């Protein structure tokens, strides 16, 4: 049974911010453990000053020296025992001459999906896997989940 976190994060700003803080804390821990520096790269505010709290994305991290990034999309639960995680690679030409390589992870946040997401992030940012290797790893990891 999935241990779900922050199930009402889209209904309450304080819960959303707590979920966001969880991602930041987990990423900070990964960054410290594996010695890399990162910074958010997606603007999460509308021009009227409102913070966009729709989970799309809930967290973003760019590791400049790798030209790689991670973007997490957190979804609302659809059923009480919801389990969902997916992932794909993408490019983002903020710099037209040197597009940023992204690992995108949409998920419903649970103890289990958080662990999988962290594994994928380590594959992408720490182990230096090529894009081809990463495609294979994503297929294998996601196939294990059924």
């Amino acid at each position, binding site marked *: 049974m999935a241990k779900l976190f922050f199930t009402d994060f889209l209904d309450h700003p304080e819960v959303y911010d707590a979920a966001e803080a969880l991602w930041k804390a987990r990423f900070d821990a990964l960054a410290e453990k594996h010695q890399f520096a990162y910074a958010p*790269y*997606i*603007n999460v*505010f*509308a*021009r*009227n000053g*409102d913070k966009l709290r729709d989970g*799309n*994305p809930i967290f973003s991290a760019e590791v400049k020296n790798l030209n790689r990034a991670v*973007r997490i*999309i957190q*979804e609302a639960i659809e059923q009480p025992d919801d389990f*969902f995680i*997916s992932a*794909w690679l*993408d490019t*983002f*030409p*903020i710099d*037209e001459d040197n597009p940023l390589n992204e690992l*995108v992870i*949409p998920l419903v946040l649970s103890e289990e999906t958080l662990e999988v997401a962290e594994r994928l992030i380590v594959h992408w940012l720490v182990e230096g896997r090529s894009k081809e290797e990463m495609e294979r790893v994503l297929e294998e990891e996601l196939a294990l989940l059924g």
Partner: protein
Amino acid sequence: MAKKHRGRIQAQGGDTEKSVSWSQDTPLSKEHGLTLLEDLEGQLTKKEKEERKKQLVDARRFIENIEGGIDAVNKRSFYSRDKGNLRIDIEVLGGIAFICMIVGFLLFLFFNKS
């Protein structure tokens, strides 16, 4: 030289990689953004369109509902759980996007008055 306001909307996933883009001196209006989304939809095959039916609706809704526009850098992916990585991505790479025409006109006057 890249213009200040630029971005693209993409249909990706599976064997699909199609896009429309903008690069201009003035912020992209909502109306133009919706037209671009329609142009992208026009590029899709019947199958691609069917596979991304919900995603196209969600992308449209996002553009219509964003209040006051959005500043770069922004990226939103619209996907369905049961469709894997088949998706529509909206990327705001530079400047401002999806403002109402009247706001855009006022911004244009403001930035061009000097």
